[in-house]
């Protein structure tokens, strides 16, 4: 049993999804919900031994499984995790439970299909984080788009088809170039699709450069990096709450993960040579997006833009080539998983009551929903990077790491202290404070037990990680140090 933990982590949610799907029409909606919750919880439970049994003193892959899949091309069903992927699998399994609960009452239409889509997506994303074979990775990487595409396209808002298609084509564009690169690597490495083998494959500068841009496009779209970020606000606005939560909390992380698993270790020379590209794009993103977020009238768009700015910290941290920066980026990924999930849930709570995401339709919420206002305040502060919340830790680490490399990087990136607080708290002020102007706000009721559970769990995590982030960085430290040592070595022939 323990030898196949990663298989379980991938397939338990997918099979659970299939079972939920089998309940069929909405007459069995109650059954579908409970089955989905059971499946998601089971998925989380099988993921927990990955953390408890994890050995954080080694950078070697753990819980490895390897069996031939397509022998003709030397393709394997090869799984394994290190300190970089383990936290992400747990984050994903955890968020899946949350989105199932979040969709409990809100989704009344095609319930089984909705729940199943999330479960299947969860398994596929775990596959992305666990795959050590290039083709296996690619299959999971592409397959996870399908449920998300359906979630936006079926349960989304009025402009959902445009958003879903934009999202799908944007992400597909990059991944074809990635596939070409992978096939090239297959030949260069002497006929292997093993990612770890690729880490040692000798590559010329031209090849590295070309592949750098191919991978950068594939993963950069997902992150998303400037200027290929415009699908994200549209996708968020149209997606149902659960879709936004997964999109922000998990799928963005897949792109960032690709940087660490592919670009840095496979293309170390190009990474060093072209680091300035990523650094510049990240710095511009933080400032540009910070200003753009300020003028958004739609709360979801605002948080979507804020996601882009926050992910700018991640990509910047990775390309500073020091442990503080890289781990800061990873911490930021996990933190953003909690904080953005919480913020989208908060917007969902409001949307369910007033059916609007426009800031101007609100105002004075604190008078009607004090408990909600308190939660929302906490997450808004976490989004502004306030110390003692998780949002601070990653930002702090990346700012500190930038100061070590170049003072001006630190100066630009630290402007987020001002812009991040401006757009988040200005929105908060207009939505929550002030006198009630919209009579419908008068009728809004405070959060119910289910919503308190969701937001409460996230609040504990956000605060816990802010007060004591050491356990998280302890898990990833050895793997990150090893990765950076690897990146420091040239692979030129």
């Amino acid at each position: 049993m323990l030898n196949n933990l990663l298989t379980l982590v991938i397939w338990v949610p997918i099979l659970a999804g299939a079972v939920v799907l089998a309940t069929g029409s909405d007459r069995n909606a109650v059954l579908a919900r409970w089955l989905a919750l059971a499946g998601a919880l089971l998925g989380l439970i099988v993921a927990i031994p990955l953390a408890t049994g994890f050995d954080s003193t080694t950078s070697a892959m753990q819980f490895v499984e390897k069996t031939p899949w397509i022998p003709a091309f030397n393709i394997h069903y090869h799984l394994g995790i290190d300190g970089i992927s383990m936290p992400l699998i747990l984050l994903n399994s955890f968020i899946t439970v949350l989105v199932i609960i979040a969709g409990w009452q809100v989704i009344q239409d095609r319930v089984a299909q909705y729940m199943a889509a999330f479960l299947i997506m969860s398994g596929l994303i775990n596959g992305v984080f666990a795959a050590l074979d290039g083709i296996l990775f690619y299959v999971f990487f592409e397959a996870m788009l399908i449920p998300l595409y359906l979630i936006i396209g079926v349960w989304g808002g009025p402009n959902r088809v445009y958003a879903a298609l934009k999202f799908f084509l944007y992400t597909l564009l990059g991944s074809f170039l990635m596939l070409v690169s992978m096939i090239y690597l297959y030949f260069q490495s002497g006929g292997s699709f093993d990612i770890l083998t690729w880490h040692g494959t000798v590559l010329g500068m031209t090849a590295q450069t070309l592949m750098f841009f191919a991978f950068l496009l594939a993963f950069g779209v997902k992150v998303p990096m400037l200027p290929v970020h415009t699908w994200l606000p549209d996708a968020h606005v149209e997606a149902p709450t659960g879709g936004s939560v997964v999109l922000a909390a998990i799928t963005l992380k897949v792109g960032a993960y690709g940087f660490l698993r592919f670009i840095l270790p496979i293309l170390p020379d190009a990474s060093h040579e072209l680091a300035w590209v990523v650094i510049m794009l990240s710095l511009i993103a933080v400032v540009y997006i910070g200003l753009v977020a300020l003028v958004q009238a739609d709360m979801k768009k605002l948080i979507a833009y804020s996601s882009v700015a926050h992910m700018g910290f991640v990509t910047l941290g990775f390309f500073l080539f020091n442990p503080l920066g890289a781990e800061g980026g990873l911490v930021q990924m996990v933190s953003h998983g909690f904080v953005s999930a919480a913020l989208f849930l908060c917007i969902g709570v409001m949307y369910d009551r007033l059916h609007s995401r426009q800031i101007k339709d609100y105002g004075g919420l604190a008078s009607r929903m004090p408990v909600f206002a308190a939660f929302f305040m906490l997450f808004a502060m976490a989004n502004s990077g306030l110390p003692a919340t998780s949002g601070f830790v990653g930002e702090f680490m990346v700012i500190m790491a930038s100061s070590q490399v170049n003072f001006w990087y630190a100066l630009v990136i630290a402007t987020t202290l001002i812009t991040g607080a401006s757009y988040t708290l200005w929105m908060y002020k207009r939505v929550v404070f002030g006198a009630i102007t919209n009579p419908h706000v008068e009728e809004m009721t405070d959060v119910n037990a289910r919503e308190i559970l969701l937001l409460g769990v996230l609040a504990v995590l956000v605060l816990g990680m802010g007060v004591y982030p050491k356990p998280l960085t302890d898990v990833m430290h050895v793997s990150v140090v090893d990765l950076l040592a690897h990146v420091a070595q040239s692979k030129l022939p």
Partner: protein
Amino acid sequence: MPVDMRMLYLIVPLAPLFGAIVAGLCGRLIGRTGAHVVTIAGMVVSFIASVLVFQDVLAGHTFNGTVYTWLALGDLRIEIGFLIDALTAMMMLVVTFVSLMVHIYTIGYMHDDPGYQRFFSYISLFTFSMLMLVMSNNFLQLFFGWEAVGLVSYLLIGFWYTRETAVYASLKAFLVNRVGDFGFILGIGLVLAHFGTLDYATVFAKAPTLANETITLWPDSPWSLMTVIGILLFIGAMGKSAQFPLHVWLPDSMEGPTPISALIHAATMVTAGIFMVARMSPLYELSDTVLSLIMVIGAITALFMGLLGMVQNDIKRVIAYSTLSQLGYMTVALGASAYSVAVFHLMTHAFFKALLFLAAGSVIIAMHHNQDIRYMGGLRKYMPITWITTLIGSLALIGAPFLSGFYSKESIIEAARMSHLAGAGFAYFAVLAGVFVTAFYSFRLYFLVFHGKERFHQGHAHGNEADQHHHHSGVPQETPWVVTAPLLALALPSLAIGYMTIEPMLFGDFFGHAIYVADRHPVMHELNQEFHGAMEMGLHALTTLPFWLTAAGVGLSAFFYLKRPDIPAALAQRFNFLYRMLYNKYWFDELYNWAFIKGARVLGSALWRRGDQNIIDGFFVNGSARLVERFSRLLKAFQSGYIYHYAFAMLIGVFALVTWFARLN
């Protein structure tokens, strides 16, 4: 070091935190009484523990140790820990004492407020944050406390969240502070980059070896590392301690309930910047450039913010400008390397300014939340305790000999006179002129409120819109004991603390190694030469310029506001531009609104519409979609389904091929 002392250190911040959590999360359960009992109990415990810690420090015990490791990456360990020395112990006493008084006072002041429990939770949380800030032994925790006090300040300024002005003021305060924090975190980043640690002791020990280190910010212009770090950290102090040009948030913060104006925006939080620079004295001593800058900024704040206090009509705003000005005084002392003087003034100011604010709150209660001093007057008959305590506070503030403010302010003026740094001449002039200004606006307020004609029955058209239900009749009444007892308790140190402590704090070895002054900056030494005891200092002052400036200020305001109120009105008419400039606070708000708030929104809109919508989406994304569409429409045209179209195309094709082959042959 006995283990029980360490427990005591933990108890000091955790007791208020416990109170805050209980009152905050279980507010409905424990009710109003429960909320103030639990938070005040926490404060009492914290205060007693602070007293014990203080005694222990006086006995010569200091402590520097870790509570837990926050983050560890290989050799880099970032920890949460305490540094307990004389500077910390003194701050702990001031914070817990003033906070305790404010807690008690709040029972009376917030009596009818629906947010009673929430308020107690916030002020206890504030006390926790402030204590973490002053007790820190490293830069990370300092930043924690730094931002946390900012957060609670934000929550408390916007406490009455349905009031648009309060909410606006809270956001303004938070964002202006964030501008300061922006510099602050960059300073911390440079410290980590060049010292490899965030631990105070290690950084301070290593600082002299990096005194001549330079960094290249742009090609061919090396900057002294210590200067850059010093400036960046000081930007943080400018935000928190409201120094020019980041002072704009403090007057607006008066939108918050009065108890927090006393606690946060007078006695404790705003002095965090002063405390920080004093704590960092081993770094600041290494750069004369930064010290000069600090002195000039402080001098500008001390004089020009004081001038604004002369024309304000809101009782709290007058005191707020006075706070700004006094913070400027402390900053001047820092720049003159007289750190202990700055901290000394910080302490005396904490007592008398908290007193003045709480007394103002008492007046505000009696005036049914009208805060306009033009509609007060003659209150001394009705509110004897508030009157006497305000008088004590005001005398302490203007530096009347033998009162606490006298000793600290006189020392600052002398320190500025003796400093040899660039800018010291201006600083000396500013703090000297400031003495007159302080005396004038303080007694303008005092006379308008407590003396002269009773004007509180004249309409409230211009009053603060604080209270919607102020239909009152009859005469003002003295406030209940929960309000007046803290006034009396704060009046005692306002009277005597300066006289009692000047000798050990400035010229004794009270601070020991907590504050470092380089031999190049002998200001404290020279002050010591002149000092012959507190009594002597008070007597001597009667013959000096500052005393006569003070007397002139008081005399002029008495003449203006008791005898000839027509003169100030005429002057305002005559010098209309000057008056409007002061009344509008030099138009800083307008400037910042235009340059930053409006600017950012215009820029954001432009980037969004041009960048995201027009270029990226419009041209690239949708443009490529249109391109595909057009191309496929073209292709579609070829597949019309008519046989003769296909036949025609074939014919052309055959013709072309034949021609081509023919040419080849």
